[in-house]
C-alpha cells in the first residue's frame, strides 16, 4: 500500500459537491461536523477545495448543467481519490430518472472522464449521518 493511500485511510479530507441535490443529503453531510456526530475526531475533515481532498462526497442526480462542473471538480482532485455517491439520487437518479434535465447518476458522469474511478455508494433519502460514516469507513477499509 503506497504512502498516499495510507494517509487517505488515516485521515480522509473530504470535499462536498452538490450535483443537483435537494439539499437533504447536503444538510446531513454538514451535520457530520456538528457535536452529535463530530467526524473531526476520526480525522475526517471537510475542506474548501477539491485540490486538498482525498474523497468527494457527491450528492444529487447529476443535472445537465452540473455534470460538466462535477467532472471538472473530479479532474482537480488529486488521485487516488474516492468518489462517494451520497443518497438515492447520486446512486441512481431515483425519482428524477425521467427528468429532461437529468444526465446522471454520478457514476455515469464520473466514468465518462475516468473509467477506472473508485466509486462508493451510500444509499438513502437522505442517508442518516451514521450511514455516511459507516459507508466512508467501509469503503476506505476495502481500499
Amino acid at each position, binding site marked *: 500500500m503506497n504512502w498516499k493511500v495510507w494517509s487517505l485511510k488515516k485521515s480522509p479530507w473530504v470535499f462536498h459537491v452538490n450535483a443537483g441535490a435537494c439539499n437533504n443529503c447536503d444538510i446531513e453531510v454538514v451535520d457530520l461536523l456538528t457535536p452529535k456526530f463530530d467526524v473531526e475526531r476520526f480525522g475526517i475533515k471537510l475542506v474548501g477545495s477539491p485540490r486538498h481532498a482525498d474523497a468527494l462526497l457527491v450528492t444529487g442526480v447529476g*443535472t*445537465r*448543467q452540473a455534470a460538466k462542473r462535477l467532472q471538472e471538480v473530479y479532474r482537480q482532485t488529486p488521485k487516488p481519490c474516492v468518489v462517494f455517491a451520497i443518497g438515492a439520487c447520486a446512486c441512481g437518479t431515483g425519482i428524477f*430518472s*425521467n*427528468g*429532461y*434535465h*437529468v444526465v446522471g447518476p454520478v457514476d455515469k458522469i464520473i466514468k465518462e472522464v475516468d473509467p477506472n474511478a473508485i466509486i462508493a455508494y451510500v444509499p438513502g433519502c437522505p442517508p442518516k449521518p451514521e450511514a455516511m460514516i459507516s459507508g466512508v469507513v467501509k469503503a476506505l477499509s476495502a481500499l
Partner: protein
Amino acid sequence: MNQQELDKKLSEVKNKLTGIERKSDKRIYLLCEVQNSYAINKFLFEGVGCRFVIATGIDSDNCFEVLYHYSYDETGCVITIKAFIRDRKQPAIESLTPFLPAAEWIEREIHDVLGIDFKNHPNLRRLILADDWPAGVYPLRKDLPKAN
C-alpha cells in the same frame, strides 16, 4: 378592502375581460385575451395592491395560456389572470418586468420551457436550462415526449 369591496374594485376592469370565474370567495379567475394582459396585471399590482405570486405557462391544445397569480393578503384571496395566446406559431405577450421586477425570472423561465416571447423584457436570457441545451427545444410543450 374587504372581500365585497375587492369584488367591486375588480369590476373596474370588466371591459377588458372575456370572463370572470369565482370558484370561491378566495379563488377568483379573470379571463382575458393576450392584448389586455398588461393592463389588467398593472391594475391588480398598482391599482388594487395585490402581491404577485408567480406565473404559470401552459401549452393548451389550441393556444397557450399564461396564468398570473396574485394574492390579496388582507382577505387571503388568490386572483389569477388567465391570458390566452391564440397565435401558436409565434406566441408572444407583453412583459411585466418593467413595472414588476418580481416577474423577471418567471418570464425568463416560461420563455425557456415554452418558447413564449415576452415583449420588452429587459433581460430575456436563458434562466433554468443548461448552457448547452439545444435552442428551439421547449421541454414543457406537449409535442415533446414525456420520458427523457
